[in-house]
C-alpha cells in the first residue's frame, strides 16, 4: 500500500487541465451571455483550448516514457500521439459544428461536453491502470451519451443517445468485470505491475483468461467492433453529424490505443490466446460491417457500418502486437480519422442544404453543382475503399505487412476480401455524386459553409498528402510505437 503522498505531476495531465478549465469557464460564462454570442465565443475558446492541448502534447512527444501518479498513468509518445489525434479530431468537430444552426441553443453545453470528452479520451490514451481506464472511459462516454442526444427536440437523437448509453454501460460493465478478474489473478490493477505479477508461473490461468476475454469484450463495445457494434448505426445516425464525425474518429482512436496498450503492457505473455480472440472479433467485424453497410441507403448509417468493418482492419494491427503493428495502427488511425471527419463534414453540408438526413440518392448529381467538395468526397470514399494514392491504401498495406510479419497472413487475406466487398458500397456514393442522369439538385437553403469547406480541404490534404508522402507520418508513428514497445 503506497498511501504516502505522491508527487502530483501537472505536466502529465496538462492537456486535461487546459481542456477542463476551458470547459468550466465556458459553462460559467455562457450563462451570462446571449445564445448566439455564447455559442461563438465557446467555439472560439474550444478551438484555442484544443489547439493548446495538442501543442502541449506535441512538445512532450519526444520525451522519454515515464510513469505518473504512482503508475496510474504512463506518459509516452504513444499516448501523446493518441492525444494529438483526439484533440485534432475534436478541433475539426468544433469547426464542422460551427455552421449548425440547430445547435445554437445548446452551443455552450455542446462545446463544454466536447472538451470534457476530449479530456477523458486524452486521459484514457495514457492510462496505465484499470482504475484510470475505467474512469476515463466513462468520463468521455458520458459526455458522448449527452452529445449524441443533444438535439433534445429530435426523437432520433434521444433514441440514439439512450441506446448508446445502455449498450455502452454494458460494455463498461464487461470491462470492469474483466478488470476485477484480472485483478483477482494478479493482485494489481496497474498494467506494468500486472505483467510483473504474471512474469513467472503459468501464463494461462483460467481466471486471467476470463478476465482478458471480458476486457476485450468491453473494449470491443467502445471500438464498435462486431459483434458488440449494435449501437453504432443508431448512435451514429441519431447524433448530430459533427458529433458523429468526432465519435467515429476519436472514440475509435482512443479505444484502439488503449486496447493495444493493455494487451501489450499487461498481458504480453498471453498473446497467443488473445490473438485468437481478436481474430474472431476481426472476422465478425468484416462480416457484420460489410453485410450491414451493403443494405444501407442513409449515408450516415452506411459510414457507421463502414466503421465497424474498419475496426477489423485496425484490430488486425492490434493483433500483430509488434512495434510494426503499433506504427501501422497509428498511421492508419490518423488517415482514418481524417477521412471520416471529412466524409461526415460533407454529409453535414448536404444535410444542411436539404434540411433532413441525407440518403445516398440525395447526393445524386451533386457533384456537378459542388464539384470540389464532391471530389473531396470521392477521395474519402476511395481512401476508405483502399485505393492508391490515398492514405487508406498505404494504411491497409502497412497493417497487412504487420499481420504477415506476425504470421497472421489469414487476417490479411480476410481483410482483402472484406475490402472487395467494401468497394460495392463505398463506390455507390461517388457513382451517385456524378450520376449523369440525375437532375442537378437545387439548394433548399443557401449553402455556404466556409468552415466545413476548410475542414474538407484539410482532411482531404491529409488523406492524399500522407498517401503520397507518408514518411513524415510514419516517422512520427515509429517514435510513438517504439515508446510503447521500448
Amino acid at each position: 500500500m503506497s498511501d504516502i503522498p505522491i508527487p502530483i505531476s501537472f505536466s502529465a495531465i496538462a492537456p486535461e487541465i487546459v481542456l477542463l478549465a476551458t470547459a468550466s469557464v465556458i459553462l460559467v460564462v455562457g450563462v451570462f451571455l446571449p445564445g448566439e454570442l455564447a455559442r461563438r465565443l465557446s467555439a472560439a475558446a474550444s478551438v484555442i483550448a484544443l489547439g493548446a492541448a495538442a501543442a502541449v502534447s506535441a512538445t512532450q512527444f519526444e520525451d522519454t516514457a515515464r510513469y505518473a501518479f504512482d503508475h496510474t498513468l504512463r506518459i509516452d509518445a504513444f499516448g501523446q500521439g493518441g492525444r494529438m489525434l483526439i484533440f485534432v479530431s475534436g478541433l475539426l468537430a468544433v469547426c464542422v459544428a460551427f455552421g449548425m444552426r440547430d445547435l445554437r441553443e445548446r452551443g455552450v453545453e455542446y462545446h463544454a461536453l466536447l472538451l470534457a470528452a476530449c479530456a477523458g479520451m486524452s486521459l484514457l490514451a495514457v492510462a496505465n491502470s484499470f482504475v484510470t481506464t475505467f474512469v476515463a472511459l466513462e468520463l468521455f462516454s458520458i459526455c458522448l451519451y449527452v452529445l449524441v442526444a443533444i438535439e433534445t427536440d429530435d426523437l432520433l437523437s434521444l433514441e440514439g443517445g439512450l441506446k448508446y448509453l445502455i449498450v455502452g454501460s454494458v460494455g463498461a460493465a464487461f470491462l470492469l468485470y474483466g478488470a476485477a478478474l484480472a485483478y483477482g489473478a494478479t493482485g494489481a490493477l496497474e498494467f506494468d505491475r500486472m505483467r510483473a505479477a504474471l512474469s513467472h508461473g503459468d501464463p494461462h490461468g483460467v481466471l486471467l483468461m476470463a478476465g482478458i476475454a471480458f476486457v476485450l469484450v468491453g473494449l470491443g463495445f467502445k471500438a464498435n467492433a462486431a459483434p458488440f457494434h449494435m449501437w453504432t448505426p443508431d448512435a451514429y445516425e441519431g447524433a448530430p453529424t459533427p458529433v458523429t464525425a468526432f465519435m467515429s474518429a476519436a472514440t475509435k482512436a482512443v479505444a484502439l490505443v488503449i486496447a493495444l496498450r493493455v494487451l501489450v503492457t499487461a498481458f504480453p505473455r498471453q498473446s497467443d490466446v488473445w490473438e485468437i480472440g481478436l481474430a474472431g472479433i476481426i472476422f465478425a467485424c468484416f462480416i457484420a460491417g460489410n453485410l450491414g453497410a451493403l443494405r444501407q441507403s442513409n449515408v450516415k448509417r452506411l459510414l457507421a457500418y463502414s466503421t465497424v468493418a474498419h475496426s477489423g482492419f485496425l484490430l488486425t494491427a492490434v493483433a500483430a502486437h509488434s512495434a510494426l503493428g503499433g506504427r501501422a495502427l497509428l498511421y492508419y488511425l490518423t488517415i482514418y480519422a481524417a477521412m471520416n471527419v471529412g466524409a461526415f463534414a460533407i454529409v453535414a453540408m448536404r444535410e444542411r442544404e436539404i434540411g433532413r438526413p441525407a440518403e445516398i440518392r440525395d447526393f445524386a448529381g451533386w457533384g456537378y453543382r459542388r464539384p470540389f467538395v464532391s471530389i473531396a468526397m470521392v477521395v474519402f470514399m476511395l481512401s476508405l475503399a483502399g485505393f492508391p494514392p490515398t492514405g487508406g491504401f498505404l494504411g491497409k498495406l502497412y497493417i497487412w505487412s504487420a499481420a504477415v510479419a506476425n504470421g497472421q497472413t489469414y487476417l490479411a487475406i480476410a481483410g482483402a476480401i472484406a475490402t472487395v466487398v467494401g468497394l460495392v458500397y463505398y463506390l455507390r456514393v461517388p457513382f451517385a455524386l456524378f450520376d449523369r442522369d440525375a437532375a442537378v439538385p437545387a439548394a433548399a437553403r443557401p449553402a455556404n459553409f466556409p468552415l466545413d469547406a476548410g475542414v474538407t480541404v484539410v482532411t482531404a490534404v491529409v488523406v492524399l498528402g500522407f498517401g503520397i508522402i507518408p514518411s513524415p507520418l510514419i516517422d512520427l508513428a515509429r517514435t510513438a510505437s517504439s515508446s510503447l514497445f521500448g
Partner: protein
Amino acid sequence: MHVGVAWFLGVSAVLFGIGLYGVFTRRSPIILLLSVEIMLNGSNLALISVARYWGEQSGQVFALVVMAVAASEVVVGLGLVVAMARRRADLDVDSLTGLRN
C-alpha cells in the same frame, strides 16, 4: 465449508449474469438501467472480495469510483428517459424504430 474469496466471486458472477440476462430480455429503459446496475454491482462485489483476498486497498477505491460512475450513468440515463417521455408516450426500446432501416 469455508467461505473464501471463491464463493464471493461466484456470487458476483451470478449477479453479473442476471444483469446481462436482464439487459438482453427487457425493453423498458428503466429496467435496462436497473439491470446495468446489477452488472456493476456484481463487478463491485468481485473487486471488493479480491481486494480483501490480496489485502490490497486499490480494489476498494476502485469500487467506490464505480459507485460514482454508476450514479453518473443513472443521472444521464434517467435524464434521457425523462426527455423522451416528454416527447412521446411510449417508452419501449423496441418501439424506438425511428432509427432503423
